[in-house]
């Protein structure tokens, strides 16, 4: 589904990614771990199409389509979803209206009619129940005054509503207490099918107790220095990131 080869990228003239190789197939969950400043968030921004980042070398194909040629909204229309570490607050636009706008924008790009209100409502009920989201929450302004946990839950809610093919979850576990973490993980697990894929970007191993990855990659100084299965995450937890430095 997503094939990244020798990807180099920079921001503000600084080289952050220095040759990433990653192959994500449908049905898989990949975890990308690494110390602060290793390039984890840059990788998600580059896949998502943030124009502040410049790809200097390498390729990034999504179902055979070169993502680097597309703007962020077109990538979303293809089915790429990014869950943000710091979602943006939009006063005056409710969660429901925002999701409706996003869903209809994608439908429009595909030449489809707007979704009907009753269909949307049904889906909202179903998905919000999965995440223990109260209906009051849905009529609040998007992310405005949300707690850290509410923001993350709202990101996962949007993912469930938009049903992307590839979901990249950037530090979705940060700032969550254990109960909230379980709810968010449950949402992600319910989302998984044989046709979609998830890339988890995380600093800590604890999220992986609840969302079990097929592959774990360790990112360091803009390169994947080690890949393995879920046991690798445990090794990292035990030995710390200093151990990674010795691998190079």
């Amino acid at each position: 589904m997503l094939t990244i080869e020798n990807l180099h990228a920079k921001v503000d003239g600084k080289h952050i990614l220095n040759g990433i190789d990653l192959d994500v197939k449908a049905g898989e969950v990949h975890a990308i771990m690494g110390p602060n400043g290793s390039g984890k968030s840059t990788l998600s921004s580059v896949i998502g199409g943030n124009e502040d980042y410049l790809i200097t070398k390498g390729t990034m194909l999504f179902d055979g389509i070169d993502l680097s040629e597309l703007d962020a909204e077109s990538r979303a229309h293809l089915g790429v979803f990014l869950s943000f570490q710091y979602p943006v607050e939009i006063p005056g636009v409710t969660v429901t209206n925002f999701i409706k706008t996003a869903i209809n924008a994608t439908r429009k790009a595909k030449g489809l009619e707007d979704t009907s209100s009753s269909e949307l409502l049904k889906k909202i009920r179903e998905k919000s129940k999965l995440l223990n989201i109260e209906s009051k929450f849905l009529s609040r302004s998007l992310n405005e005054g949300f707690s850290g946990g509410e923001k993350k839950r709202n990101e996962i809610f949007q993912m469930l509503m938009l049903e992307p093919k590839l979901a990249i979850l950037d530090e979705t576990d940060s700032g969550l207490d254990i109960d909230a973490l379980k709810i968010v993980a449950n949402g992600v697990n319910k989302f998984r099918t044989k046709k979609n894929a998830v890339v988890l970007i995380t600093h800590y191993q604890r999220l992986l107790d609840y969302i079990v990855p097929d592959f774990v990659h360790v990112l360091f100084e803009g390169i994947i220095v080690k890949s393995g299965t879920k046991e690798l995450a445990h090794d990292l937890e035990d030995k710390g990131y200093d151990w990674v430095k010795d691998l190079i």
Partner: protein
Amino acid sequence: MELKEKLLSSYIAFEERIDLSDSIHKTRTDALKIFEKNGFPSRKDESWKYTSLSSILQEDYALFPNSETTIELRQVKKYFLYDTDTYKVIFIDGVYSPFLSDTTHNGLDVCLMSSALTKPKFRSLIKSYFNKSIPKEDSLSALNTSYALEGVFIYIPKNIIAEKPIEIIHFASGNEKSLWLQPRNLIVVDKGAQVQIIERHQSLKEHPVVTNSVTEVYSHENSKVDWYKLQNDLVSASLIDNTYIVQQKNSEVSLHTFSLGGKLVRNNLNYFQKGENVCSILKGVTILRGKEHVDHSTLVHHEQPYCESHQDYKGVFSEKSIGVFNGKILVDKNAQKTNAFQQNNNILLDDKSTVNTKPQLEIFADDVKCSHGCTVGQLDNKALFYLRSRGIPIKEAKGLLTYAFANNVLESVKLPSLKKRINNQIANKLGVSLGFEL
């Protein structure tokens, strides 16, 4: 002939049309002398540094419409708050339209200035209030006063709460090649009374129109006034709005100005706090493109202690549009414990648009809280990326963020149907379909 000359020499023609014995005629002729002496303001005047009237003074305007124009309701229905029951005072080319209006003398007076000037019942109100709030040397207001005849007269008696909002609409039909309008409004809200007013100026065809409007509002003890100015006119229409608000003890007057269109708009909004515990609220959203120019010049004069004023103006500018905000807060020595707040935030959507923002605080009391802040910035790229990553195209994403930026001003609109209307107008102005009813 220069416009100033024309306005002076046409005065005889004006006098032939009116009743010279009415009680304000001396005030008119005195005002004409002030205009004759001062003329139109130029950029040499400190308060007109960023706004030049020269582009609208070249035309040979008709000062009196040649013929009466009738308009079918269906032609203009969209400009009314048709889903809310309102009193309506409607003018076409400066002439009252009884057919489109819905006035009253039942418990409160919502009628015409021309009739208030002649009816004995209103004589003492006119004598007490007409032109009493206006600084003598203000040339544009003096020009309006000299030709004062038609406009809206509203009197809300003691403890009366006007059940219905009042809509004031000035249509320009386009039947005159070009037109100079000078409506004159007087609103007296007696002790404990309340009223909501919506005012707009609307051209129906693209032709040069300048409206030099003067409104005096007297808000007595414990009264409450909500005023909404909708400025979304065609690019051929200009407006100079001179509004003077005099507040007595414990009164609250809030005024929203939504400036979404027009060639040149100048809002001279003046508040005078004459009693204690007064609250003055001034809010505005300005969204411009093309060559539109909107200037908000506000004055809040704190003359008494324990009063508040809140100013919050948001501006969004694109293409070659120009915005000006000049906010003056004057706190007299006597006005201790004043709480004056002023904020002006602006977004420039591209590099050709301009905004000039200038807070001006003159504080002579020593125990006051005054804060002011102005910002000029751009839309946040991170926020844009967030919306685009959800599949929302860049144009709509910018529209949503702009809407969010102006939202806190919109939120304070108290009439739901009006709020919805303004939301839709803003979406239109931003050129986006937001995909939902805001």
